[in-house]
């Protein structure tokens, strides 16, 4: 009846606890100075931090007990990603979580060994994009009759540190997932991207000539891929919401201490009112993100879950871009410098707004879901 029919939003005790723990971890273990220290390192993160995250079970939050996970469902990963976004913390957790989702959704228990490794701390990543288009078919990598791959993938997150790759390929026109060990990828086949967000890592990877260790086939592959892209949008939105909130704090702190023309600049409405709009936008994004966490459930994503993931991404993109942009501007000359954290926020914004499809990508699909239903 109503366009707003599903407005479920709730937080389980477990999710609430995860949010507290993850925020505490980020606050205590990875202050911005520590994040900055990793900006120009090759992996982009501190291995000790990654180990601590694995030890806390974060790589397995969204996976079932039977494969070594915590069995809490993918909605429970949302608070962790929100907290990580709040600290602008990189690490391969997003890539690994999505690789886990793609495998579990496509193969279930059939991928137990691969999923078990990932829960235990192996880094996995998804290799999806053939080109820049998140809406493309992305089945340009071919798997031939001899079991060998031809072609390359682009923008593969954390490829430099991945222990294995889940590669979207095609076999006689049908989409398949090829599981590729790092050791099977040739020397020189991974060429790092120069990313706008220095806390993140990605690379182009040439899989030509590689023999996958295993291939997952069948109709489940398409659904799993579609759902993983939607979950990528949701988890990126959670990160962006956390980042926008942190960015808001850095803006308000500056507005409360910086004086010009004899007044604290936060008393000027020209700065005050857009800052309120950042706050309101962040709360909206947070509402959609936790609505998404509430409705994703288990198994294939429902129509409501699809709507929720897409709306979360649109709302989070809007606010992180606005917050990052205004943060540079409101910090004045200092905002324009490398040393101001606005640099990190605006770069995160420009990275996040395209990941798993930008606002236009999702709004176009939402129009269809909402208006043609």
């Amino acid at each position, binding site marked *: 009846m109503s366009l707003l029919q599903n407005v479920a939003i709730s*937080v389980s005790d477990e999710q609430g606890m995860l949010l507290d723990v993850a925020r505490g971890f980020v606050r205590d273990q990875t202050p911005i100075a520590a994040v900055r220290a990793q900006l120009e390192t090759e992996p982009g993160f501190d291995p000790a931090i990654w180990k601590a995250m694995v030890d806390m079970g974060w790589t397995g939050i969204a996976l079932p007990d039977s494969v070594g996970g915590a069995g809490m469902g993918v909605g429970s990963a949302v608070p962790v990603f929100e907290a990580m976004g709040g600290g602008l913390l990189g690490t391969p957790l997003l890539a690994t979580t999505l690789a886990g989702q793609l495998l579990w959704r496509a193969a279930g228990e059939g991928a137990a060994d691969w999923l078990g490794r990932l829960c235990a701390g192996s880094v996995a990543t998804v290799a999806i994009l053939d080109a820049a288009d998140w809406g493309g078919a992305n089945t340009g990598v071919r798997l031939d009759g001899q079991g060998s791959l031809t072609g390359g993938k682009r923008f593969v997150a954390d490829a430099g540190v991945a222990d294995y790759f889940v590669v979207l390929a095609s076999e006689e026109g049908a989409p398949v997932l090829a599981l590729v060990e790092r050791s099977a990828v040739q020397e020189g086949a991974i060429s790092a991207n120069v990313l706008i967000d220095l806390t993140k890592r990605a690379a182009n990877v040439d899989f030509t000539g590689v023999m996958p260790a295993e291939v997952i086939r069948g109709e489940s592959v398409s659904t799993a891929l579609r759902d993983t892209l939607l979950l990528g949008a949701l988890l990126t939105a959670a990160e962006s919401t956390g980042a926008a909130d942190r960015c808001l704090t850095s803006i*308000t702190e500056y507005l409360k201490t910086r004086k010009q023309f004899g007044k604290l600049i*936060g008393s000027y409405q020209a700065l005050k009112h857009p800052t309120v709009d950042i*706050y*309101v936008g962040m709360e*909206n994004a947070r509402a959609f993100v936790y609505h998404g966490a509430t409705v994703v459930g288990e198994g294939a994503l429902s129509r409501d879950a699809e709507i929720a993931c897409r709306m979360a991404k649109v709302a989070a993109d809007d606010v992180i871009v606005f917050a990052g942009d205004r943060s540079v501007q409101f910090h004045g000359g200092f905002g324009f410098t490398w040393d101001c954290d606005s640099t990190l926020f605006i770069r995160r914004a420009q990275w996040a707004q395209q990941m798993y499809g930008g606002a236009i990508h999702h*709004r176009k699909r939402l129009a269809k879901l909402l208006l043609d239903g």
Partner: protein
Amino acid sequence: MSDNKAALTTFRDDVAAWMAENVPADPGFLLPLTFLEVGTEQQLDFLREWQHKLWSAGYLGMHWPTEYGGQGADPAFQYIVDKELGRHNAPIIFNTIGLNWVGPLLLDMGTGEEKAKYIKNILSAEEIWCQGFSEPDHGSDLGAVQTRAVRDGDEYVVNGSKIWTTLGNYADHMILLARTNPNTERKYDGLSFFLSPMKIDGVEAHPIRKVTGEYGFNQTFFTDARIPASCLMGDEGGGWTVAMKTLEYERGVTAGQASGHWGVTIQIDDMIEELSHIEHDGAPLLADPVVRDDLVGFIMEAKALTLNGRRMAIPALNSDYPMGLALSVKYRGTEYERRMKQYTASKQGAQSALYVGDDDAVRGGFWQRAYFSNFGATIGGGTTQVQANIIAEHVLGLPK
């Protein structure tokens, strides 16, 4: 828990059945869209009778004490009644200043005598209330109120003028903020709060015509009006605190209102429904990709409002900015509605130019009138811009 749920379900069914029987048919004359536009005796009589009927049936003031005419039930019951009123397109429950601001205020801060004297008549619509806060020279800056109340024996003598007095020409009582001491160090400390009679000598309400073409507002003039000293609520000089509490009820920051059905409910679905009948470039308007994208934006805003409303009850998601969601309800909601109505009013091709009174206007000019009427919400109770200041200062801690 499940007993409670069952009770609510039964109640909902009862209310729905009652509404199906009792919601009045279109009276054949224009009804106001909100309580801010009651402009004729005909409308007033009709709405008074309707509110009295709803209250007599036991469906108003559901969570107010029975000794004052309420039903002594959980607020969830009032929520159900309000939902059903909207669903049945029922006429508005118009005594809003009494029901939503004065009533909760008296229940919260009033004396036993004040509660006994006023509350039941608010519910039954026997007595209508208006509000005397804003003045011609002081709209959003309430602390600067200049209307004077001077103690003279058992009375106060009031002189000055209030503006935007909704229902002022029909009201029996006014919540009046007046200056009892012009010489205090802080301007706020010279203000007092009165439950003041309206139908006395020296009080005149002059209707003001609005941008919609309707009435509803007044400018109220006090000329040596003598009101009993017992009308003072709280202490002399303590008016600011009471006024601020009133605004919490007015802005929906604090719960306790007797009926949320103070305006015709206009939902996002109504907007889409309306636009679905419109042709544009020889094709349905809803096939236009630009329009579709705009509508996605509106749907998202509506959904975010609902989700944030529900989220207020979840402590784990509210601890970072206490009161932040509550204080931004008006800021977000009223502006969304204004843009949504403007959009719908402007996407009707040449018919967008028609207004109430033209037989060819889309739904009698409903959207055009609703758009203009909505400024009552973005200006009244503190303008959007003042709301932004409040959020900036009280939620984000920015300096004044």
